[in-house]
């Protein structure tokens, strides 16, 4: 089983106190037996204290067999954010969009957010949302984006956090373009519940490493009591298929 981690970070943030160069996540992936990981920054572009897109792109360039990236962007910047997204996908080979509605201060179903998600979907690229317990990150708020963009794959990172896992499973039942990602959510048994509710094909292992330990996060999935087939899908095959569909060239690049 080639394990593929759907949610990790590579960035250096003085304001958050998180200094995570790529070597940190690579070391933890080695310890946990994780083959590949999706990386993203801690800040939203444009407006990040360092050029997080370039930082993440450089990390992928250094570890091309281990890392792929999502562009973390702020939809508030409209066309500028869209241009950054197109550049990230076509020039740097990034695989999708990361949105953190709290740090952006943007509702998931705000028309500007929806426009950016649709732009990613034109490349077949998914959008990973931070999905926890705060306003703007709740599953039923993100469901508005999933409904507005049925052509986009929407990943609920943390699958509802501490208190909104029921809601995350409910919206994933309702919208077939929603995936649930397991990172940091603290309940192993709820992964099994999600698999039984929506099928193993739409559940993705993620660690939120290096801050959350990838070995521990993987342990959580292994403790969930999935079949070998289900675990294979959740721990890598689903994500591999999802990202294989991303196009990095073509008409979508010029289509405004």
């Amino acid at each position, binding site marked *: 089983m080639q394990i593929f981690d759907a949610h990790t970070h590579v960035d250096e943030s003085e304001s*958050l106190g998180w200094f995570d160069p790529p070597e940190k996540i690579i070391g933890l992936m080695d310890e946990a037996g994780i083959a590949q990981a999706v990386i993203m920054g801690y800040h939203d572009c444009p407006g990040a204290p360092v050029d997080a897109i370039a930082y993440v792109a450089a990390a992928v360039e250094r570890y091309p067999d281990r890392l792929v990236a999502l562009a973390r962007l702020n939809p508030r910047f409209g066309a500028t954010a869209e241009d950054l997204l197109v550049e990230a996908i076509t020039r740097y080979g990034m695989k999708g969009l990361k949105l*953190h509605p*709290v740090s952006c201060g943007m509702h998931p179903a705000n028309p500007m957010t929806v426009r950016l998600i649709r732009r990613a979907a034109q490349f077949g690229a998914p959008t990973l949302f931070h999905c*926890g317990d*705060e306003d703007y990150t709740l599953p039923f708020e993100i469901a508005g984006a999933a409904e507005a963009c049925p052509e986009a794959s929407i990943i609920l990172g943390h699958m509802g956090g501490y208190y909104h896992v029921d809601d995350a499973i409910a919206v994933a039942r309702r919208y077939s373009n929603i995936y649930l990602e397991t990172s940091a959510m*603290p*309940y*192993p048994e709820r992964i099994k519940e999600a698999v039984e509710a929506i099928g193993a094909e739409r559940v993705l292992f993620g660690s939120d490493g290096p*801050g959350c330990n990838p070995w521990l996060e993987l342990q*959580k999935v292994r403790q969930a009591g999935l079949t070998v087939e289900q675990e294979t899908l959740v721990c890598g095959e689903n994500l591999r298929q999802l990202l294989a569909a991303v196009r990095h060239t073509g008409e979508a690049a010029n289509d405004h």
Partner: protein
Amino acid sequence: MIIDAHVYLGQSLFGYRQDAETLLRRMDQHGIDRAFLCPVKPIGYDLAASNTAVAAAVREHPDRFLGLARVDPWLGEAALAELRRAVETLGLRGLMLHPWEEVIAVNSPLVDPLVAYAAEHALPVLVAGGHPRVSHASQIGDLAGRFPQATMIVTHAAQLNISGRALFDSTLLFTGHGNLLLETSGVYRQDFLMSMVNRIGAHRLVFGSGSPLYDQSFELARARNLPLTSEQMALIMGGSLAQRVSGL
């Protein structure tokens, strides 16, 4: 010796349940020697009945369990009377405050007499931390500052927030109040726990699972996964509590 600082006993109004036999089986399976039992809020809302049930479990397994008393601060003098009964008649050994399930801010004046009683009798106070509006880290800090002589165990490091926005407040709370112990269940980010070991010392962290709301096996793995010396790990697994709580 491994001590789980935070488990629940009984059938909760809020749907979760754990009986003594199930808990002991889980503890044996995971090599946990002792546990602090928190009473649940039962169907019928009678916390006194839960205190009595916890005391009965402790009497049956005195080498495995230590019981905490739970009261509803909204009941005022009756809450203090029940705390007295639970400690002085039933033999319970600390106070549990669950601001979320009791729907009261942890720094409400109604809580003060209860914490004062605990401090006066050198009883630990376990606070269900990190719940928005009632046990935010800054609210726990207000209470802890008014009762610096009370030892408080704060569950979830007072930061039930998966975006990391609560980490700063949590850090302020524990660095600012030396009477607080940080309990590890459900805590977001292993690097946060390590940063707290470095800032406040392993002697102020305690393993707790929050079982059955949280998975005891996984929560034990969370604590054990920290890259610590064997001395530091021994403190987190029970040594810290033994230093602070008499009779352990």
